[in-house]
């Protein structure tokens, strides 16, 4: 921007501006976390692999179907925890340190900032998911397949998880509350969601609740993409996830555009 002229510089907008800002903000995000990034990726990797190996120790000899549930469930958990749990904690941290306002003052489109954030979360999450799959393959010889469905499934899981996290982290301005929400979510995801086991194992009322929450659908779509014959229909799961993603995107847009 040069100020030599007598008029104000024109407003920057459009696709190339958007991508330039996306690239800069992604770089900014990566550098901001550069000290923590290797650790974060390792932790995610251990979580993914650990979940597969750990649960199998816990339950001893497990049958073929249980192995497939475990392998795909651990994959989903690895994909989703970064965006829905770890990411919001970073945003809460920014608020605590008082640096949140500066990020908000940057001359980049809000959507480019959200996209750069999503890209960062994906970078951290994917190695863990691959680790979980590899562990299941080598430890249990799990009969995983790769169908084209896996691509939209994984993308939707990543996107919905990250945007749900982004939405509540930006909507709730108290960092302590954000921390609490993330704790509750991790508890629900790991312990009480039909991700690594069938919903039929749950009490009826709880299974009914999960039909509307995103977690079971996340399990279903990824399982449909990586196994044969376990999941019969994914239409409902895709619809539920898409609705959650759109809701989260709407809330995020509102929250980051909001001026108190």
């Amino acid at each position, binding site marked *: *921007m040069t*100020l*030599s002229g*007598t*008029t*104000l*510089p024109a*407003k*920057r*907008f459009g696709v190339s501006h958007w991508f330039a*800002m996306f690239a*800069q*903000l992604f*770089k*900014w995000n990566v*550098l*901001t*976390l*550069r*000290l923590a990034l290797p650790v974060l990726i390792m932790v995610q990797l251990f979580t993914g692999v650990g979940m597969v190996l750990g649960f199998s120790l816990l339950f001893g000899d497990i049958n073929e179907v249980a192995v497939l549930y475990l392998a795909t469930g651990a994959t989903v958990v690895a994909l989703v925890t970064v965006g829905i749990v770890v990411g919001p904690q970073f945003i809460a941290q*920014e608020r605590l*340190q*008082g*640096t949140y*306002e*500066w*990020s*908000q*003052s*940057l*001359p*980049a*489109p*809000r959507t480019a900032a959200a996209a750069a954030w999503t890209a960062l979360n994906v970078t951290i999450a994917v190695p863990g998911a691959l680790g979980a799959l590899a562990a299941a393959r080598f430890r249990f010889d799990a009969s995983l397949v790769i169908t084209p469905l896996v691509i939209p499934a994984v993308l939707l899981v990543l996107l919905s998880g990250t945007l749900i996290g982004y939405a509540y982290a930006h909507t709730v301005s108290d960092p302590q509350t954000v921390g609490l929400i993330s704790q509750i979510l991790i508890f629900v995801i790991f312990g009480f969601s039909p991700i690594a086991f069938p919903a039929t194992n749950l009490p009826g009322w709880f299974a009914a609740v999960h039909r509307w929450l995103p977690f079971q659908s996340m399990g279903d779509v990824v399982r449909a993409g990586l196994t044969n014959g376990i999941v019969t229909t994914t239409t409902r799961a895709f619809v539920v996830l898409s609705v959650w993603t759109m809701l989260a995107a709407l809330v995020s847009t509102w929250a980051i*555009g909001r*001026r*108190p």
Partner: protein
Amino acid sequence: MWTLRVDNLEKTYDDGATWANNGISLSVQSGEVFGLLGPNGAGKSTLVKQIIGLLMPSNGSITLGDVDLVTDPDYARQLCSYLPQAPMPITAFKVREAIDIAGMIRGGSRPEVQKRRDQLIEILQLEEWRDTLGTNLSGGVKRLVGFAMAVVEPAPIVILDEPTNDVDPLRRRLLWQVVRDLGERGSGVILVTHNVLEAEKSVDRLAIIDEGKLIAEGTPSSLKNDDRGSLRLQLMLPPGSRTPPLPSYIGENVRVGNNVVGVIPETYAAEGIAWAQGLMTEGIADEYALGATTLEDVYVRLTGERSATT
């Protein structure tokens, strides 16, 4: 040329419980360095956060040229670069990286940004820390890096909220130099500071804000106009002692801590000195000083009257 106009700006917090800005109007021209002074909690940061689009005014308008900054916050963020009062998130960045990426996000081209980054590192004498991570920097150097990030690719309006906090006196001078230079490059600079004496030398115009209201505005010399032909006589009293009765030729005066500062007509200089020396001999005063009135006197008079009466 363009002008930033803030018109009758009001901002309340907590559903009207706090009036942080209460009808502020001011304007800043391109090329002008505009100082914003006022006591803690006066509403300075609140004002600049509305300009940059971080806060929504409760009432009033903010325009830059013919752009309405309130209705177009995306454009507002492009037109204003900002150094917040709060710390910058640079712990994981090397000094040069932080400045570079800030310039690139502001839309600068890489070679230009790098050139200007090197200039700033040199002018602000930061060479020693060029490749140091933010987490290992001292508070003042961190502040200077934040400052460099805000000015590496200056926007039409540059907003600096207390840039000199924690910065040593020598580098503060260097920083003021860069601020002056920003004005010469065509930016309008809004400078929030508590450093009245340094501001006096660096700003073209200034406003004093108190309790959300603009209580004075003008050039440093116009604000001192009332004091023309006057001198300031400062008495330093022993801790805890009472203010002695003042001779009638001492006009307006305030006591801040153990200091009494009064304004006397130039023609009474000799009497003033004799009187103050008398007080010293009697042990009523420790020291005295007679000098030209400064902006700080004006500032203390304007904002101190309230604290003296309440």
